[in-house]
């Protein structure tokens, strides 16, 4: 491998964490990643605004698409996870879903090729909002003490077990949930980008080798990169769905009457 590296001097091989931190466009506030986030925000706003500029009972194509996303989040996520009381959260979760979906899809859009969610800052923001949301919903519905009691104390357990269970439940509900929410999205997008880098850049590295056999073999690397791009598209949609479903599930447990 190191022999090939010498030939492909200007290729970033092997892919490293540094590939995720391209040089800033203009200072730390204007980077590829922040620009992509603004782009995503703009795209989502423009899409919904044009699709819903003039809504009709019999929808146009754009309106139908927008309503399909809303219907998916409303019926398959919000109502499924939180019951009928959860429908009032459907608008927020629709926005969340759309935003994550668009930013995730950026990972296979030519020219962008990476999702903003491959930087953990953005998943942290989204996960923090979900965290605050489900805590606030729980406290508002049950009151602080009752919500804490509900979250920490499992009913029908012998009391000495609580010495063990309360720390576990605390960790589970107040630490692990938001952290895994952010990490899952980040790690998927990070790993996806790394995979694409490995197969694409690897293909170029093999192509520029001085060995004919290695050059021919690069075809498999490019083919794999294409397969991985499709896989990445699947992961992008799936992770958006998972993030929103889990957030809705957490809000649902806050809304629930019993543990």
């Amino acid at each position, binding site marked *: 491998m190191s022999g090939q590296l010498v030939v492909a001097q200007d290729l970033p091989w092997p892919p490293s964490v540094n590939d995720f931190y391209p*040089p800033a466009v203009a200072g730390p506030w204007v980077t590829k990643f922040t620009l992509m986030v603004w782009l995503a925000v703009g795209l989502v706003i423009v899409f919904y605004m044009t699709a819903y500029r003039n809504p009709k009972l019999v929808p146009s194509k754009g309106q139908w698409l*927008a309503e399909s996303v809303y219907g998916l989040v409303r019926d398959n996520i919000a109502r499924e996870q939180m019951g009928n009381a959860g429908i009032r959260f459907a*608008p927020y979760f629709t*926005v969340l879903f759309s935003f994550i979906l668009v930013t995730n899809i950026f990972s296979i859009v030519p020219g962008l090729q990476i999702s903003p969610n491959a*930087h953990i*800052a953005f998943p942290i*923001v989204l996960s923090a909002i979900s965290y605050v949301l489900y805590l606030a919903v729980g406290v508002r519905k049950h009151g602080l003490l009752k919500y804490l009691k509900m979250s920490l104390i499992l009913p029908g357990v012998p009391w000495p077990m609580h010495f063990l269970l309360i720390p576990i439940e605390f960790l589970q509900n107040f630490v692990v949930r938001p952290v895994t929410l952010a990490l899952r999205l980040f790690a998927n997008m990070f790993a996806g980008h790394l995979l694409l880098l490995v197969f694409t850049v690897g293909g170029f590295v093999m192509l520029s080798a001085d060995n004919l056999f290695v050059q021919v073999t690069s075809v498999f690397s490019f083919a794999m990169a294409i397969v991985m791009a499709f896989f990445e598209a699947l992961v992008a949609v799936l992770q958006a769905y998972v993030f929103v479903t889990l957030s809705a599930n957490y809000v649902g447990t806050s809304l629930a009457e019993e543990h």
Partner: protein
Amino acid sequence: MYLAAEGHNPILPIWQELVVGTIAFALLVFVLLKFVMPRMETMYQARVDAIEGGLKRAEAAQAEANQLLEQYRAQLAEVRTEAARIRDDARADAEGIRQDILAKAREESDRIIAAGKEQLVAERTTIVRELRTEVGTLAVDLASKIVGESLADEARRAGTVDRFLDGLESAGAR
């Protein structure tokens, strides 16, 4: 920090990105929740109403149709019963009328027969009376011719004739 590309830890967030992410996402949420999503939910409800309302209307129409059908069936049954009743009545009436007519006809025929009989009796009586007179005269004439003598005595003559006739009558009745 953006220049700290060398050995950047991917688990540590870049704080500028946290700020940008928060602001950008907040803007997105604000705009969509304010301008789009309420109309989306309204439209969703309107569509559900339109569909379910249509179903409900169809159900109501169906129920009404069923009710009407039941009503018509009931009316039809009623009418049939009524018709049957009328037919029965008519049959009964016809029977009654027939009986009446028969009775009247029988009565009439009885009456006619009775009248005929009466007339016969009366005519017979008349004829008998006339014959009696005539036979008497004839007999007297005959007797006068045969005997050749005039029976001047009224009383004797009457007695003779009457006796003769009584004898005839009792012989005829036997």
